[in-house]
C-alpha cells in the first residue's frame, strides 16, 4: 500500500501560550482533492501553517509521502513538494507578476525547470501572461488569486494547499478559480482546500473534514459535511 500524500497525527499547536489545535488528524491520499471547512477561528489556517513548516507543532506528527516533515523549515518543506497558497494571497505587491512567479520557482528543484513551468502556468492562466510586467498590487482580486495559485504551482508541488481561495471574490470568479483547481488536480496534484463553509467546494471535493474549536468534528462526503454543518450551526444558534 502506498503511503498517504499527507497525514496529520494528533497535531497540537499554539501561538505563544494560547493553544489553538487540540489534536488534529487528517489523511489525504495521492491525487485526492480534500476539503477542510469550519467556522472562522476553527484552526484551519493554523493546521496549514503547521504543514508548511511556519509553525512547529507542540505534539503530533506530520507525514508527507512517507516522510516525516514536522520540524523541517518552510523552505525545506517547499523543496519536498508542498506549496501553500496562504489566506489573503500574500503576493509581493510591489513586484511584477513575472517576478512573483519567478520567486514561486525559487527552490533548486523548481529552478532547473523554471522556463518549462512558466510556460505551463501561462497556459493555465493566460491573463497572467498578458500582465506579466504589471505590478502585482494593481491586479484585480480574481487575478490576484490566480497569481497566488500560479505562484504556488511554480514550485512544482505534489501537494497544493489552498487557504480560502474564494475569499472576497464574486461568485463567477470563484467558479473560475475552482475550474483551475480541477485542472490542477487532473494533472495528479493532491489538493487540500480550506473554506469557511462547504458550498464553494461542494462539487469539487468528494470528501472533507469539518473543523471547530481546534479539532476535527466530522469527516466524510461533502453531503455529510453539509448536514453536520447545518446541525452544528443550529446548535450554536448562528
Amino acid at each position, binding site marked *: 500500500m502506498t503511503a498517504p500524500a499527507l497525514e496529520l497525527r494528533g497535531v497540537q499547536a499554539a501561538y505563544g501560550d494560547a493553544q489553538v489545535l487540540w489534536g488534529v488528524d487528517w489523511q489525504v491520499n495521492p491525487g485526492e482533492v480534500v476539503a477542510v471547512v469550519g467556522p472562522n477561528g476553527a484552526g484551519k489556517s493554523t493546521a496549514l501553517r503547521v504543514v*508548511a*513548516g*511556519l509553525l512547529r507543532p507542540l505534539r503530533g506528527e506530520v507525514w508527507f509521502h512517507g516522510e516525516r516533515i514536522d520540524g523541517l*523549515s*518552510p*523552505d525545506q518543506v*517547499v*523543496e519536498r513538494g508542498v*506549496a*501553500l497558497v*496562504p489566506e489573503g494571497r*500574500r*503576493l*509581493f*505587491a*510591489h*513586484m511584477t507578476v513575472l*517576478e512573483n512567479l*519567478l*520567486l*514561486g520557482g*525559487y*527552490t533548486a528543484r*523548481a*529552478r532547473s525547470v523554471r522556463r518549462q513551468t512558466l510556460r505551463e502556468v501561462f497556459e493555465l492562466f493566460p491573463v497572467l501572461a498578458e500582465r506579466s510586467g504589471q505590478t502585482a498590487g494593481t491586479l484585480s482580486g480574481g487575478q490576484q488569486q490566480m497569481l497566488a495559485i500560479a*505562484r504556488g504551482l511554480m*514550485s512544482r508541488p505534489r501537494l497544493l494547499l489552498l487557504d480560502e481561495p474564494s475569499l472576497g471574490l464574486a461568485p463567477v470568479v470563484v467558479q473560475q478559480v475552482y475550474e483551475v483547481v480541477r485542472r490542477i488536480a487532473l494533472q495528479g496534484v493532491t489538493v487540500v482546500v480550506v473554506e469557511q463553509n462547504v458550498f464553494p467546494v461542494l462539487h469539487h471535493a468528494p470528501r472533507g473534514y469539518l473543523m471547530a474549536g481546534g479539532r476535527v468534528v466530522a469527516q466524510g462526503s461533502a453531503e455529510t459535511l453539509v448536514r453536520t454543518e447545518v446541525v452544528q450551526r443550529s446548535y450554536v444558534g448562528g
Partner: protein
Amino acid sequence: MEVWLQNVTFGALVGGLYGLAAVGLALVFGVLRMLNVAHGELIMLGGYATFWLFTLWGTDPYVSLLVAAPALFAVGVGLYEGLFGRLVRLHEESKVQLSILIGFGLALVLHALAILLWTADDRAVTAEYAGRVLRAGPLVVPLTRLAGLGVAFAVLGALQLFLQRTDAGRAIRATAEDWEAAFLMGIPVRRVYRTAFALGSALAGVAGSLVAVSDAISPAIGLSWTLKALIVVVLAGLGSIFGTFVAGVLLGVAESAAAFALGGAFREVVGLVLFVAVLAVRPQGLFGRGL
C-alpha cells in the same frame, strides 16, 4: 556666488558618499527590521583596512576596496551569527529595540577596540594623487572626491542590478516585503537575513575605504557616520537606492552650505534639523516601506 557654487559642489561630492553609507543601513533595516547603529563603526573598520593595506604594502586605496568589501562581508557574517541573528525570532518591536541596543554596545566596543589596537590618532591614506584637483572654470574639484563619487555611483548601480535582476536579489526584496510569504516560496529566509546583513556590512566597508582616501579616519568617526546614514535613510525612506543617493547628496549640500554660512560647528547640527523637519512634514514616517 562662485564660493557658493564651490561649496555646493563640494557638498554634492561628499553627499554621494553619504548615500553609499546609508544604503547598507537601509538594506539591513529593510530586510531584517533591525537598526544597526554600529554601521558607522563598520565604515571605520573599512577605512582602517584600506589605511593599513596602503601603509604596509602600498596597496592603492581603490584596489583595496576589493579587500575591504569581502573582509567586512565576513565581519558581517560573524556579527549576524554571534549577535543580531539571535534576535530574529523576537516580535517586531522588541526586535528593533534590542537590535538598537546591541548595536549601540557594539559601536562602543568597536570604538574602544580600535583605540586599543591603532591609537586614537587621525589617519589618512596619502596616495600620490591625493592632493590633485580638477579645474572646471572657477570650480576646483579634488580628484579623490570625484573618484569617491564615481565609485559610490558604480557600487550602487551594481547593487541595484543585483537586487532587480538576480534570484538572490529578488529573494532579498521578497523577504523585505513579506518574510512569511518568502518562506512559502522556498526561500531560506534566515540565510537571506545573513546575506543581507553581510552585504550591508560590505557596503559599509566600501564607504570606509573611500572615506580613508578623501577624508581622515580615526576610531571616533563611527558615530557621526551612523548619524549621517540614519538621517539620509529618514530623508529617503527605504523605497529606492536612487532615492537614498539623492538624499545623501542633499544632506551633503545642506551641510556644506550651513558650514559656510553659519560656521563649521553647524555642519553637524544641520542633520538634526533636517531630521526634525522631515518628521514634522511627513509624520507618517518613512521607515515602513518595502525595499
